[in-house]
């Protein structure tokens, strides 16, 4: 088995001790897309002992231009599963956790706690802030990268160094910054940047070299140039500053600004009375709802809301509820847009409600 790693064993900075260290190390890759594809393959080839792949998406034909971990035959298959098979074939000595789920606030901290390093290969701002927050709170390095057209950014955030929120205290307004799907991305840039991410993760696991902490690496594939900019910890940082306001890993309310600000909320204490006349619409995803719901609730996960809107009756009155009161706000607005006139959402979510009711033990 060691023969596989002979070229590593020849490098003094790795050697037998380093290779053993890698074999006992655990890395979580959030997002098996353009960045995750190369990162996963190099982590597996390097012999990282356990690799988690968190992705709830399936392979689409338009992914194959850059997501080189997948084959044409994988179209339609869950990414976590297809990627896990590929890296197991590459290195059967690696244990792979194929996590076919969305990395969200219900699982962020418990998942991060299971690994030694996290690679943020996701493609949306709420997930990026969530990875950062969970990593800082759990004391795990967040190896971050993002790509747009020809431009890549790479940086490492840890508890002892500036975090993503120090660098970018707030995301751009929802809708102002296209995703890869909307704005396009040079396929090979994903390979360059994701590979760089794997390098930072491996250095972190080995404890060698200099990490990209307090430095943001900028890759300009069009100019064929890299630059770096330095940044400091922000004393006003909401997460790691002097008076933090973010104390847990919760998904940011991204896109909230576009929602109707006059939308009626319902306080947790008023829910019981309201439910004598209104129907509770539970929009939690199945994995969030494992430990119970309320009697008479209609379950319709937010991810399926658009497709299953016809199952609801627009003449009825709904209190929309999710786990913490973020997705429900969005879902309530969707219902209003679709012509539902009597819709409220539960402030603070079912978690807030459960906190006032000992007989409910929501996850």
């Amino acid at each position, binding site marked *: 088995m060691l023969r596989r790693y002979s070229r590593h064993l020849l490098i003094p900075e790795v050697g037998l001790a380093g290779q053993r260290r890698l074999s006992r190390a655990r890395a979580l890759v959030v*997002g098996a*897309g*353009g*960045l*995750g594809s190369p990162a996963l393959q190099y982590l597996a080839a390097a012999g990282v002992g356990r690799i988690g792949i968190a992705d709830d998406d399936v392979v689409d034909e338009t992914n194959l231009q850059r997501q080189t971990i997948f084959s044409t035959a994988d179209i339609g298959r869950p990414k976590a599963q297809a990627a896990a098979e590929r890296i197991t074939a590459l290195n059967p000595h690696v244990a792979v956790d194929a996590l076919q789920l969305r990395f969200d606030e219900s699982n962020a901290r418990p998942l991060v706690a299971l690994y030694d390093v996290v690679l*943020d*290969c*996701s*493609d*949306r*701002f709420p997930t*990026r802030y969530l990875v950062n927050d969970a990593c800082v709170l759990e004391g795990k390095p967040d190896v971050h*990268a*993002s*790509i*747009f*057209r020809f*431009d890549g*950014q790479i940086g490492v955030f840890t508890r002892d160094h500036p975090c993503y929120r120090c*660098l*970018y205290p*707030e*995301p*751009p*307004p929802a809708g*102002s*910054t*296209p*995703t*890869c799907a909307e*704005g396009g*991305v040079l396929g090979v840039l*994903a390979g360059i940047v994701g590979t760089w991410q794997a390098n930072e993760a491996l250095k972190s696991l080995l404890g060698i070299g200099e990490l990209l902490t307090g430095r*943001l690496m*900028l890759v*300009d594939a*069009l*100019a064929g140039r890299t*630059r*770096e*900019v*330095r*940044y*400091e910890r922000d004393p006003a940082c909401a997460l790691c500053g002097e008076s933090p306001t973010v104390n847990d890993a919760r998904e940011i309310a991204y896109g909230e600004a576009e929602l109707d600000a006059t939308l009626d909320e319902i306080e947790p204490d008023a829910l019981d009375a309201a439910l004598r006349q209104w129907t509770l619409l539970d929009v939690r995803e199945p994995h969030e709802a494992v430990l119970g719901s309320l009697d008479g609730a209609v379950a319709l996960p937010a991810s399926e809301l658009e497709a299953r809107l016809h199952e609801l009756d627009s003449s009825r009155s709904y209190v929309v509820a999710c786990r913490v009161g973020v997705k429900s706000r969005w879902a309530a607005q969707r219902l209003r847009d679709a012509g539902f006139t009597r819709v409220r959402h539960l402030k603070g979510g079912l978690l807030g409600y459960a906190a006032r009711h000992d007989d409910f033990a929501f996850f």
Partner: protein
Amino acid sequence: MTVRVLAFARVREILGSNDSTLTLNDGARVSDAWAAVVERAPALAPLARSTRVARNGEIVSGEEPLQDGDELALLPPSGGG
């Protein structure tokens, strides 16, 4: 004074250039440079709060004073992956 402006990702796309120069009054600060860039490309205005500016390789606040010959990098967060 004249400063060089490097633009990345979404800012580069809106500005239509990754490398340009700005002429500013003496005593100008980073926020004045940003205002001049937005004047050139008004569609950048919504990105004001999220975009960070590095002056000569160091991310600074809008209050940071500029000097002739400075190099500014306009860095929007990008979510793609």
